[in-house]
């Protein structure tokens, strides 16, 4: 009858605004926003044959390993400490922590240290090499493989399509071997 016709012809200011807002919202829901939400940036490092992804927001810097001093009495997952601009940074041997065979572990030089900040802890993670930064879609990370060791399973939160293990740094920091209770 007449009401719809009238409404088609003459929209109130309110109605116009509502329509415009709805359209604006639809337009605003772009794929760009999807990217921001569904991708995370990772640093890709290598140990032996393995590639590992470390979430970038916990990472402070990457250093070349120089002058590692072991700490007697510390658990063997700890490589020791390095002098990072006058600060003594504890260095965790990531290969040993994850149970990954690595050749460069025993050598004092040649590795890289990824300096991470996890809550109250600052520590360096000793790796063999750093490949670069990579964006990984969140959805593409799948549960880790069954055959990984039990130590690693706690710490590795998943695996990507191209076989990069994604590390859960918080799980790493709360690992009983990393914590020292004496």
């Amino acid at each position, binding site marked *: 009858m007449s009401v719809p016709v009238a409404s088609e012809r003459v929209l109130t200011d309110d109605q116009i605004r509502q329509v415009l807002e709805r359209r604006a919202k639809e337009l605003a829901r772009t794929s760009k926003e999807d990217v921001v939400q569904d991708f995370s940036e990772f640093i890709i490092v290598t140990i032996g044959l393995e590639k590992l992804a470390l979430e970038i927001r916990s990472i402070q810097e990457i250093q070349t390993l120089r*002058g590692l*001093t072991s*700490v007697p*009495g510390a658990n063997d997952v*700890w490589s020791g*400490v390095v002098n990072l601009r006058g600060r*003594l940074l504890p260095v965790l041997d990531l290969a040993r922590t994850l149970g990954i065979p690595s050749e460069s572990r025993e050598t004092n030089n040649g590795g890289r240290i990824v300096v991470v900040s996890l809550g*109250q802890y*600052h520590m360096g993670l000793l790796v063999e090499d750093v490949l670069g930064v990579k964006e990984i879609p969140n959805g593409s990370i799948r549960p880790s493989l069954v055959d990984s060791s039990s130590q690693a399973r706690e710490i590795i939160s998943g695996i990507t399509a191209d076989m990069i293990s994604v590390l859960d740094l918080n799980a790493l920091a709360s690992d009983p071997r990393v914590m020292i*209770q004496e």
Partner: protein
Amino acid sequence: MAGDYGDLMAKLIEAFEGEAQERIQELNKATLALEQASDPAEVADLIKVIFREAHTLKGTAGGLGLKSIERVGHSMETVFGLLRSGEIGTSPDMFDVIYRSLDAIGDLATSAARGQAESVDVAPLVDALNQIAAKPKAINEPETQAAESGQIPSAETGDDGSKKNKKKQPGSKDKPVEPAQESQQTAESARSSPPKLLIPGKSNQKSVATAELATAHESNDGNIKDLEEEDQSIAVVRATELPASKAAVEVATQASEKSTVGAQITPDKPKKAVESVVKPNESTVVPQAQQARAPEESIRVSTGKLDILMEQVAELQTARINAEQRLTEVREMLERVEAWDIEWRQIRSELWRMGLTSGSSSGHVHASGEPGNLQINSDVRSFQNLSLFLESNANHLRNSVGQLTGLVRNFDSDSRRMAQVMADLQDGVRRIRMLPISTVFETFPRLVRDTARSVNKEVNLIIKGGENEVDRTILEQVKAPLVHLLRNAVDHGLESSEKREAAGKPRQGRLELTAAQRGANLQVEVSEDGGGIDVNRVRESAVRKGLLTQEAAAAMPDQEAMWLIFRPGFSTKSEVTDLSGRGVGLDVVRENVEGLGGMIDVKSELGVGTTFTLTLPMSVATTLVMIVECGTRRFALPVTNILRIMKIRPSEIGQLRGRAAIDFEGRPIALTQLSSALGMGETAADLREGKSVQALIVGSADQRYAFLVDGILGAQEVVVKSLLPPLDRVRRVAGATILGTGEVVMVVNVADLIRSSSMHNLAFAMSKGGSSPQSSEIVRPSVKTSEPPLVLCVDDSFTTRTLVKSIVEAAGYRTKQAADGLEAWNILQTEPIQLVVTDVNMPRMDGFELTKTIRKNLQTKDLPVILVTSLDSPEERAEGVEAGADAHIVKGALRQEDLLETIKRLL
């Protein structure tokens, strides 16, 4: 605005707290001095000081609305006013109340500053003070005072003022039972006193104060309000400045000091008081209160800020050392460039020769005009151009070498200058954190006095070395252990006066607290001449408490058994007294001291006394460490923990209960490789090779341990940084330090290391201990004995040489003597010397040089050398070790046993 005002008040009260604590300290000192002062002038001075301090304290507190402090302060002021005027005498009870009042004021000031409710109820204290004020002299000094206080002044002065005094005192003697009324009456008779001071029912001491003032001014007719309402210290000064009229004499009897009357009236009372008092200390301890207030401008800085400063200085130091490293790199580069330059010069002459030859030949060829020579010609030309270019290049190179050399030289001098400034800066910052240890010692006379009184003993406390400076952190933390040791000394260590007399000792026990610098450490000794610790009772007690088995205890050497007192759960006195803690014993003291990176030791002789020695680092900012090598790794050990560095021959290593052990100071101590003690496997030199090895003798409280190392790299002042979590929980590691090269070196926690090493050891000793009677004897390859060994004593001092000679000869050795290293070396060529005891500082050839010479020579390289030095610096020790000395003895502590023990060990 109100908020601002509140803030201001809060700040003022906070400032007041600091001031109040200082004044209380002053008051404590002066009161302690008063308690045992006998010189009348001194007594008068002290009373004046106390009166003034109490008055100021009262006034300030009143101004800030701190009523409780004001009340206590006022009552104290009254008591001292009466003391000053001689109306009351001193008594131990009175001093007790005064001390309690001072404590209360301190507590009140603290709670006020923190904005907390008042922590103390002052009413009982005010009452107690009032009672003292209300008591006429007759009561306080029951027997002799009447005659003295009443008669002597009058007899000697015959003055109006003292007659008034005389009149009043018999009065007070007549009515000792009703002191309040009496003073009330006096007050009432003094009509000129302002009525506002007579606060009814509140405290009768106020009326006494008024009465006193009124009496003072009766004849003076002065304006009493002046005295009442203005600062009384001013009033006192004014009074003493008055002309020597009758009135002035009257006033002077209170204000004392300048007037002879005052000096004569006061004399005997305090002396008498002192006699009845337990004398807690000597006047040497407490400086004259008024002298102690040296005006030194200071500001308060939070220690946190100083810590940051210190850290930054350490960073700067690292940066400087890095820069020095760069310098070394530049120097290396310069060397390479110089080598290049030299090479070039050599080649250049060759090149010139070639150039000349080809040049002349080309000229020749050219002249002949043969075909094809054109090509050669151009070659020659380009060769000549090339030589020219090379030549200019060489010049560049030479210039660069010159510049680089200059640069290195400047860099070098800059860096040296910087090192100097840096060292000064670091030292300066370190010093900011340091305070004289007297700031802690100051509170001890009072503590000892109170403790002595509560156990009814007479103690004479002597404090020495309070001027030695220590880091604030250490100062704060060393107080508790010292308090404990002092209380222990008074409570358990010293005997009662009767017992002492029976033992033929002076009634008064002697308690000595000494601080002294020993190398990089501060040594604090608490020593008393009491009954000593009965080592057998210690054994019994330890066995009873299940610390070890009967057998193990019996087998334990005395000194080791003595150290049992530091074990947790040990206390020799079975009854728990109020003073020395309940179950909190020497183990806590030990823990505290070790927590500071120090060590504790005890020496006791039955019937003679006991001495506890605390060895502490003086600074926490930097630590002097000895850097040692274990295989390829380096470790640092705080020098505080190192007792000696020794070279040990395999023949000296024996077995003790299945473990390697050596003999040290006459007792066996376990020997372990440092690396294996640190849980890193054996790295140190193999003992079976027959070479002598280096060992560090470390100690902490009851334990001595020898750790073998591969090398000793020297002592170094370092900044010890704690490890970051979670590595900060690693035992055996106290932290780490970054050396000049940027290398990180772990600093060993010696106390922890010994604990973990000896737990194992102790368990072993307990299971096997006592199984054989010689279990504490080292089973060692027997030392062959023939004719007495020949010992060479080298010292440029005739006295020392003779002393050493007599000691050594008395022990049955033969000796030869030399006045310096060179003479010694000559003697060594001809005489079959078996051991050398040498001084370090000598003309012609010093001890280090002699040692090095001995080590270099094939015939003498195994000859044992003992260095005797006057300086006990770790650097010197390290140098001695480096030179190859087998042992190191400090001259100051040159004890017969030490020397002979060492000789015996080395031969």
